[in-house]
């Protein structure tokens, strides 16, 4: 109701904006004001009171909560198709919901992790990053996408180097800066070429504009893909991820691995909403190659790691590969399975990082020996998360992966599925290895000091419970994720075709590989 009221009270220019974006923007401003007031207040800039941090955290939490509630506000009136900046459809709502929940989780993780450094700016940057992510997820226009992406990037830079006295953090920020800048430039160039080809700035693959001579459109698509893949850290654009996750604080690493990737994946799916990804035509082929490379490469990378953060980086790369398989499986289940998998991936990865955060400063696998004896709850939670990532029942990852395989199967993506299976087996090795290390008794009974923070505990518990419960009863979530992905604009033959691809009911494509 509040949302309705707010929508009514807004100036008409803002009416088009999805409610969460508005709420976040407002929250950012309030937080900014609060920080400014406090800094200029009697305590001055030097006061390192926890109260300020708590207040900032509360504001941030309230903002995220309200934004989440705002997802249920009536969809804003849609402007004319060409000029539309945002697509506040179900797909966006789902992605934004995941982003907001994940951000909330990260907030829970980080609300005292940053202590020692001022945490209020972290909350501000977190909100900014979330805003960017949501804009990315909801953008229907290249400008909006680009701006959202850069908000995300820049706040990430601040978050990565949040403790700039740590050389690792600085180095990670430097790498992210250089590579994100390069990839942004490539992306922009691609967008420019697409604009040159089609004349409109809709955020969609420009292949359909001039079918007779698609070279420019193709080049544009590929350049945009490079930018997207970089942010998604799909192989071979993945090399930064391990270093950056390694150098960044754990909540930030979680933010990069979860929020940023969800946003980019949602955008990627939207980018190809009007494109036929069923065949082996060009963008599909490119995506397929990247998917295979990501699955195999990511899992291999993680396989060789002894640092848990870097291991999770590899795992994250591989999961992007799985998601790409889902995206490429343009059948009745493709979008649904991708959405489902996004949720499973987000929960599990977030949980894994939260577990890492529960035993801070021990990213080295060897120091996790005997964790089942020393911190059984944390070890159990991490095991559940890893099981989910590995696709082992009863964690939700099991059904999620099976769902993707189902989608792939229904779209006859046999090569991709083969790669998926092979890489899953490689993946099992290292997930199991972590579990094993935690099960082996520690040589000395040196329990790490420090109890888990309450926020992390609650988060871990909630995530583990959710992972198991949804794993056992995936029905409702499947229901929720079905039919999310409506094409942004019906127009011409392409849209109709993609409509066919995305929905059940239409006759399924003739089985090719199996016949």
């Amino acid at each position, binding site marked *: 109701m509040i949302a309705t009221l707010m929508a009514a009270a807004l100036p008409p220019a803002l009416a088009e904006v999805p409610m969460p974006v508005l709420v976040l923007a407002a929250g950012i401003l309030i937080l900014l004001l609060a920080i400014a007031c406090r800094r200029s207040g009697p305590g001055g800039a030097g006061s390192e009171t926890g109260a300020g941090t708590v207040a900032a955290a509360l504001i941030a939490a309230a903002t995220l909560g309200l934004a989440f509630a705002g997802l249920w506000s009536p969809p804003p009136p849609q402007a004319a198709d060409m000029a539309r900046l945002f697509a506040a459809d179900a797909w966006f709502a789902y992605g934004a919901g995941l982003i907001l929940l994940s951000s909330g989780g990260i907030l829970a993780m980080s609300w005292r992790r940053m202590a020692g450094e001022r945490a209020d700016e972290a909350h501000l940057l977190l909100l900014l990053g979330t805003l960017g992510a949501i804009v990315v997820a909801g953008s229907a226009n290249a400008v909006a996408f680009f701006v959202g992406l850069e908000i995300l990037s820049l706040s990430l830079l*601040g978050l990565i*180097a949040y403790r700039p006295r740590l050389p690792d953090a600085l180095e990670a920020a*430097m790498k992210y800066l*250089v590579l994100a800048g390069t990839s*942004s430039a490539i992306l*922009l*160039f691609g967008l*420019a070429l697409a604009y040159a080809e089609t004349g409109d700035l809709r955020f969609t693959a420009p292949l359909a504009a001039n079918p007779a001579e698609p070279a420019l459109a193709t080049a544009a698509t590929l350049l945009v893909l490079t930018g997207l893949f970089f942010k998604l850290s799909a192989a071979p654009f993945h090399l930064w991820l391990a270093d950056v996750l390694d150098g960044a604080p754990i909540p930030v690493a979680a933010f990069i691995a979860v929020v940023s990737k969800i946003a980019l994946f949602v955008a990627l799916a939207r980018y190809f909403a009007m494109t036929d990804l069923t065949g082996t035509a060009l963008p599909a082929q490119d995506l397929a190659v990247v998917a295979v490379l990501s699955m195999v490469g990511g899992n291999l990378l993680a396989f060789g790691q002894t640092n848990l953060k870097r291991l999770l980086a590899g795992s994250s790369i591989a999961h992007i590969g799985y998601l790409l398989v889902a995206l490429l499986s343009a059948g009745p289940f493709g979008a649904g399975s991708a959405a489902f998998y996004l949720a499973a991936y987000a929960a599990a990865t977030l949980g894994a990082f939260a577990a890492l955060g529960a035993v801070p400063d021990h990213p080295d696998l060897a120091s996790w020996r005997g964790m089942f004896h020393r911190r059984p709850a944390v070890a159990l939670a991490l095991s559940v998360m890893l099981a989910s990532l590995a696709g082992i029942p009863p964690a939700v990852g099991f059904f999620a992966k099976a769902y993707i395989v189902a989608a792939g199967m229904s779209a006859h993506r046999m090569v991709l599925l083969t790669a998926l299976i092979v890489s899953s087996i490689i993946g099992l090795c290292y997930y199991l290895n972590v579990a094993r290390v935690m099960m082996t008794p520690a040589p000395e009974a040196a329990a790490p000091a420090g109890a888990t923070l309450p926020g992390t505990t609650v988060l871990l518990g909630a995530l583990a419970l959710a992972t198991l419960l949804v794993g056992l009863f995936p029905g409702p979530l499947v229901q929720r994720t079905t039919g999310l992905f409506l094409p942004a604009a019906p127009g011409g033959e392409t849209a109709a075709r993609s409509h066919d691809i995305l929905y059940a009911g239409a006759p399924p494509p003739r089985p090719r590989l199996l016949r």
Partner: protein
Amino acid sequence: MTATPAQALLLASMLFALGLLGVLVRRNLLFMLMSIEIMLNAAALAFVAAGMRWHAADGQVMFMMILALAAAEAAVGLAILLRLHAAGRPTLDADTGNRLKG
């Protein structure tokens, strides 16, 4: 006749390639940042050129967004650079002194 959008796009491509070359070749972070600026600039040029083709202002709007990004990124990048310089990497060499690898 005057310049065509295609020519402008070609120019943008060349600048873009040169910027990429700079990123790939230079070890000094300062030069890397400059090269990135070049690439961004090339993209901006491409947008403007594309806007020319369609007689629309959208290209220039995008140009302005890129400008904002370039400014913000330069600020953050230079801050990181200074910090690195102060934190014991005075040569600003991107290749040596890396602790995150493997």
